[in-house]
């Protein structure tokens, strides 16, 4: 008999769902904040709110298909607001959504420590996929900056704790 190994309690593998309004409005508000706030506060562009929302939906729903689709849609919307080819963020966030929902089944994602790690690790994953796709398929000449990526990953990990705590209010037990 094959038993899946998880590192979660019964309570931790609870699956959540969201209202249609929250499903539409939360990503939209995240994208809106992402494009508006950096105009006034330039440093805010190191944060990736759509990424954090993708992660939150993925780990809360714990469905790989739902996670990757959410990531794809949010990523494509984000792509549309840049001047670069559509699909760079779409592909990166599809991978992140799939990965986060897969991980959400196996580990506890309710405590701040794991949320910090999720934000930190998946920011690296996101940037790595984006970098590879942009350079090899998109033909863009990007330069990988380790220090900047580390700082941004840490900042997103910390912000993930706050954002996840706020978005927890909109979760409904499935």
């Amino acid at each position, binding site marked *: 008999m094959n038993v899946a190994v998880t590192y979660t309690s019964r309570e931790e593998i609870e699956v959540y769902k969201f209202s249609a309004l929250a499903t539409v409005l939360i990503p939209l508000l995240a994208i*809106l904040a992402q494009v508006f706030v950096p105009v006034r506060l330039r440093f805010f562009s190191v944060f990736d709110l759509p990424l954090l929302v993708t992660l939150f939906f993925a780990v809360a729903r714990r469905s790989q298909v739902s996670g990757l689709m959410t990531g794809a849609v949010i990523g494509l919307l984000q792509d549309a607001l840049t001047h670069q080819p*559509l699909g760079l963020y779409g592909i990166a966030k*599809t991978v992140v959504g799939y990965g986060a929902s897969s991980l959400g089944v196996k580990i506890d994602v309710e405590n701040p420590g794991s949320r910090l790690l999720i934000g930190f690790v998946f920011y690296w994953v996101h940037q790595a996929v984006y970098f590879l796709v942009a350079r090899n398929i998109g033909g863009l000449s*990007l330069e990988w900056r380790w220090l900047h990526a580390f700082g941004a990953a840490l900042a997103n990990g910390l912000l993930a704790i706050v954002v996840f705590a706020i978005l927890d209010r909109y979760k409904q037990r499935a």
Partner: protein
Amino acid sequence: MENVLARYRNTTILVAVLFVQIIGLAVQVKKPTDAGSMLLIRYWVVSAITPLERAVVSTSRGFRNVWTSYLDLRDVRAENRALKEQIDHMRIDEVRLKQDADQARRLQALLAFKEQVISETVAAQVIGSSGSEQSRILYIDKGANDGIQPDMAVISPGGIVGKVLHTFRHSSQVLEISDQSSGVGAILEKSRLQGILKGSAGGEVSMQYVMSDEKVEPGERVLTSGGDRIFPKGLPIGNVTAVSPGRDLFLNIRIKPAADLSRLEEVLVITRIVDREPESADTGGPMRAADILAQRLPTVEKKAPPEGEKTAATPALSTGPSAAKPKPEAPKPATPGTATQGAERGSSTRAAGSESRPLADVTKPTGRPAPPPAPSQPVVQPPAQPDQGAPQ
């Protein structure tokens, strides 16, 4: 096969979704859209997002204005704002005029040299960005309906900001000069070395293609060269902050942009640039009709024209602005057409000739164009000389 797909359903969907996006991406890269055109999804998303951004900006601005207006003295604040705007305009004018003066000195000998002058601008408010570090894009609240078109230059009082990339009906996408796909023709103010201003992935701006054997000092100002046909020549770009040897025998010149790209709220879009020939120094001010006549007459042939030409000139003379004026003391010519005839005979006939001659005729070519008199300065007619009658 079905069992395999069912067992790996999620992975299959992941691969399918990634495959579709990669194919779409490859198609876009292989066949880029023309300048000005864009994908429908991009148009929809921007059209949906920018009204929200505009609402957020105007709401926040409204709250901020109410708050500050109650705190500050209203009149002083309004006056201060007006003065600041005036200073901003004057700074732009000052830079342009200085550049014009330098240019005039260097190119004094060249005839028919044309300079570009900003003729019309549209003020716009920055309402958003791309939200991505890899895409340095701004959104402004003026679009095609306001006369904005792709490839128009966007400036701020400090210096250049970027160029319009795409336009929508009520908004436009502006590519900042710090974006890695941006390129601006640049020239160093003192050394007159030309290069290309490029952005980078990190948002730094550098001037490229300056040979490494050239000497460039940190602190030197960098201006637009006009070579890109987007930015008029002479607009401030920034200052050199560091110079180091780069790749392929070129210098790596780091530039600090003059415009604070991280705190842009309002910008100007240059909607019209006119090519203008510079005025030479001796025709700088308006000339009086008498002075023009004095310059012209010594070169005029003294031979009288045939009779037919005299009568042909008559209708034009009678329509001149001074034709209706009473002639104070000068003897009346036999026919109106004799005014021209008199003028061509020599200085002794100036009085009678100039009285009924329209300014348009007076300023007709003598080898170089003469500007019309300023509206506030009336055309001064030469005094009539009673002892010199009109020729018959």
